[in-house]
């Protein structure tokens, strides 16, 4: 396979719906970071968190924010939780407030909130070290009823740092990726009733984006020969390695293994995944050529 980017205009008809734009994403103008708000650290500021258990009724948030607005507190962050799978009669509202200099009113605000007939309970979490606010109320984290963990940069660095010291260990990281890829596709089948390659790609693009892994752009797909080219923007693995310095060859092990495991599970065949461009080499994205392993 040639080590060059494929001209998207020559791609077969079946992939048209993924390639309506060249090099840019349709939703490009909307791209921006999403603050998850599990923890907020603002040195020099007096922060406080409220966790409010309320009736799941329209207008509840308006009542809560009105009381806080009247007290003059700046709301830094709000998250509302209801059970996504069913209609629930309870919502949880978590608010992070900047109390500024005027923190004497907060007790009155809490009392006022408690008197609302739509509110069942109000919990307060205070900041650590004065300016570090952490949501200590919600645990564990769940996505669609499945447990999840949040891997922030220190954790991700810890996961892949080992391979930077010992070249031989890169293979194990690749194997971890393969196992992850296979299990993820199995979960797509179970959760979303995924049956076809195109459904797989749609779910993969959505999930990798919404869970913060990367943005995937399919630039070539040949379903008869089983050859594919994927560009991964903001691939977390290679962005971390790049932060340790520019490299002279592609570095992805975990994600490369994951793609191999995924395609293997989708097509029930073994796949080769070659990284031809890499963020760690100064490229704007990581590019992977994915093809069926030839058997002799």
């Amino acid at each position, binding site marked *: 396979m040639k080590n060059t980017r494929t001209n998207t205009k020559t791609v077969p008809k079946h992939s048209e719906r993924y390639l309506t734009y060249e090099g840019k994403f349709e*939703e490009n103008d*909307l*791209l*921006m*970071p*999403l*603050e*998850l*708000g599990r*923890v907020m*650290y603002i040195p020099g500021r007096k922060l406080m968190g409220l966790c409010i258990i309320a009736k799941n009724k*329209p*207008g509840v*948030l*308006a009542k809560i*924010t*009105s009381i*806080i*607005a009247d007290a003059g507190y700046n*709301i830094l962050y709000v*998250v*509302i*939780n*209801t059970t*996504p*799978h069913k209609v629930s009669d309870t919502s949880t509202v978590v608010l992070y407030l900047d109390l500024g200099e005027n923190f004497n009113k907060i007790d009155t605000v809490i009392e006022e909130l408690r008197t609302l007939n739509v509110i069942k309970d109000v919990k307060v979490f205070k900041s*650590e*070290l004065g300016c570090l606010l952490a*949501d*200590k*109320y919600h*645990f*564990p*984290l769940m*996505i669609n009823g499945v*447990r*999840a*963990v949040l*891997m*922030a940069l*220190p*954790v991700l*660095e*810890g*996961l892949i740092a*080992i391979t930077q010291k010992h070249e031989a260990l890169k293979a*194990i990281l690749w194997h*971890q*990726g393969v*196992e992850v890829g296979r*299990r993820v596709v199995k979960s797509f089948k179970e*959760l979303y009733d995924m049956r076809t390659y195109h459904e797989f790609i*749609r*779910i993969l693009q959505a999930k990798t*984006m*919404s*869970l*913060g892994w990367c943005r995937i752009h399919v630039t070539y797909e040949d379903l008869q020969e089983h050859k594919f080219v994927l560009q991964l923007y*903001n691939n*977390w693995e290679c962005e971390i390695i790049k932060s340790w310095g520019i490299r002279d060859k592609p570095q992805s092990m975990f994600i490369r293994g994951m793609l191999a495991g995924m395609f293997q599970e989708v097509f029930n065949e073994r796949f080769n995944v070659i990284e031809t461009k890499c963020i760690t080499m100064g490229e704007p994205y990581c590019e992977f050529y994915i093809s069926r392993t030839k058997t002799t």
Partner: protein
Amino acid sequence: MFIYREENVKDLTIRSQGKVTALYLETDNDPNSIIKITSTIKKFGMDIRNMIVYTENDKSYVLMYISGSFHSEDKILSNLKGNTNIYEVKAIELKSENTLHALQKLSLFTDPYRAVVMASPILEGIIECTQNQPSLKAMLWYQGYNVGIKLAFLCKEIYGAPSIYSMLELFKNMNLIYGLSKIEYVKNDVIDYEFILRLHNNWECNTILRSKGVQKEPQSVFTRGMLEGFFKEVFNGIDFIAVETKCIALGDPYCEFIVKPRGYVQYN
């Protein structure tokens, strides 16, 4: 005393049995703007399923999932767009049937770092391939060890924890925030360097219990490494060893670890 509730990370992905629409809005940083938005949603009889508001400087960014009457969607959009405090209103495309993903968002952050979310299939995959060979478990331990060192660095250098006690408290919070486990310190002796930790809902052993069933010996490898790395960094280079004495994978209600400097631990 907090009662722990499950956090649905619904801001990222949601599955629903009914019609769900996602809206993305940018407004001025004024609580009244949020009141206007939620009032509008209420006015048209829609229900806010999940919502995130994040403020930065003069702006607020709102991501919300609403459900209810299909016909109200356009009316809500035009009503919100007519509001001078709201700069931007976008409805997010439904990407697959009954499954809505916040596609317009990239790069998740949890202050101050980029983060990715790893759900159960991914966690199982990370652990699974190391289960068959002890040598591979060593790598998992080393991964955990590195994570522990990085978390200690986070507590010490980024959040500026002034004492060992505050570092231990932050470590407990970090584990909770990231959804790794809920730590309870049973013994916390910083003079004699002896610690006993109970890890409730430890993700690693929960994952093993779910995928492989009840085991005959403690299973924690990654978490053990994480504790050893963390304590080493906290105590400026002293080698610690963590021995798992109770384990969720054995059927215990929590994983329990004795953490002491290497050479001080009696294994039986």
